[in-house]
């Protein structure tokens, strides 16, 4: 197999966690790529939902926004945004909520709101969008992000969305009955929460990655599982699928000129 980047490994490792029976609420970026690779490889039956209202969508290229036209054109149905959040997310129909993060802590709490103080932020980030309720209404949360000390921090600056809080049974104490973050896939490793403490623990290192590299790019003392496996390298099919998807995406998004080319298929 040809060489692959850390980012490709991350996307492909994340995609493997998805099953054909999953109903997946998809964020833009790495989550979207992972979900679509899953759909195009081992999980063709997967249902992908974007918060713009598109249910069961099958885009040929990755959307730049969560409301691109192709998401609607290929969907089983497209509903209003209030319905999306009421019937589909809050209604408990989502098995996997797939989130990215600007900042994350060891318990899977996520910050995408501010760096610094909320009232006087150093950096004003976009905010939560759908995440606060995805984090508690989806049956499980998968997170995918590249590692860095800036992103994986001891204490996040703002609780945009709740993971396992202070760990342990904190979710249950707040009356939240969904599982919360059950998987974190970075560009270096696969992490799962410890069954008791709920702290994210490295269960698998991507090929060629050392424990030291994981620690160097993480702001808290990393815990490793008793047995740490090596992530299976991307298969030829997985890698080709991801690269084809990215190539189609780049071609389609390049300048506005995409429209004419796509017309014959869409029209």
């Amino acid at each position: 197999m040809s060489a692959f980047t850390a980012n490709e490994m991350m996307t492909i490792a994340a995609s493997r966690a998805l099953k054909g029976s999953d109903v997946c609420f998809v964020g833009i970026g790495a989550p979207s790529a992972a979900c679509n690779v899953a759909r195009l490889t081992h999980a063709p039956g997967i249902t992908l939902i974007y918060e713009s209202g598109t249910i069961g969508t099958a885009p040929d290229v990755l959307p730049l926004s969560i409301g691109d036209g192709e998401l609607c054109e290929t969907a089983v149905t497209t509903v209003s945004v209030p319905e999306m959040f009421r019937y589909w997310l809050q209604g408990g129909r989502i098995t996997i909520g797939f989130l990215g993060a600007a900042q994350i802590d060891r318990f899977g709490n996520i910050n995408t709101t501010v760096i610094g103080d909320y009232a006087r932020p150093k950096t004003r980030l976009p905010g939560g969008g759908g995440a606060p309720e995805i984090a508690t209404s989806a049956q499980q949360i998968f997170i995918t992000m590249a590692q860095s000390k800036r992103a994986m921090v001891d204490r996040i600056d703002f609780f945009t969305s709740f993971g396992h809080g202070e760990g342990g049974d904190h979710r249950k104490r707040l009356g939240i009955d969904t599982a919360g973050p059950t998987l974190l896939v970075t560009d270096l490793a696969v992490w799962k929460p410890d069954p008791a403490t709920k702290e994210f623990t490295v269960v698998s290192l991507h090929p060629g990655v050392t424990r030291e590299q994981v620690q160097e790019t993480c702001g808290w003392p990393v815990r490793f599982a008793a047995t740490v496996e090596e992530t299976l390298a991307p298969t030829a099919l997985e890698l080709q699928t991801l690269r084809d998807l990215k190539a189609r995406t780049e071609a389609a998004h390049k300048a506005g000129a995409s429209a004419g080319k796509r017309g014959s298929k869409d029209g």
Partner: protein
Amino acid sequence: MPLERAVAENLKDGDTVAFEGFTHLIPTAAAHEAIRQGFKDLTLVRMTPDLIYDQMIGMGMAKKLVFSYAGNPGVGLLRRLRDAVENGYPRPLEIEEHSHAAMANAYEASAAGLPCAIFRGYRGAGLAEVNPNIRSVACPFTGETLAAVPALRPDVAFIHAQKANRRGDVLVEGIIGIQKEVVLAAKRAVVTVEEVVDDFAGLHPNLTVLPSWTVTAIAVVPGGSHPSYAHGYYDRDNAAYLEWDRIAADRETFRAWMQENVLEKGADAFAARVAHLRKAA
């Protein structure tokens, strides 16, 4: 009615106004007209403030922003908004921040004539601690604590839609977002459309149609949601979103761009902007 008049008659300084569109059908032409008319002290409401609110904030028109996700979709941050929040430039901006679920429920509740929305939300979320408009009620049957937010009732809503008919009914299709709810939630509603057709005969009965008596004014502005898109008419101008990141990064570049592309232009400029984005026949 001409867009200029529709905006002048329905928007006033100090209004609470929603220019809504969920990535699709963003009412850019209406927002640009509001910028040209130079309104002040607006409270801007939108789930996903993007370029048009970055522009209005950068021009100093907004005193407050009510929102749930303030990003340049698929690109990154909104730099004029950041400048206002972080540096108070060109004027400080008060913010009331919610989640998407809260905003969607709040528009829905207002469309439904209710004073508030209840939903299962904000559990463990930091916004509940910094936003006094996030409260709670107890379910009178199970005792469960549910989040409550006030209904959103803008003075005026602006949306872009595909079609109106001669009677003034409006059709929205594709990603319908929150278009119907914001029109029904607002006291006044102004709609820009791609075109006017004689009637809607032959349309499927269950489509999203706003009857004429729910809409205050309609203006025909082909291309009026560029660089967003209009399903069935033209594609999203992804390049313009990427380009915005560069323009908005610098105060002077921003000013010059606004002068050239908004202040010195009119609603008729939009048709040409989408010409290269229309589907091939």
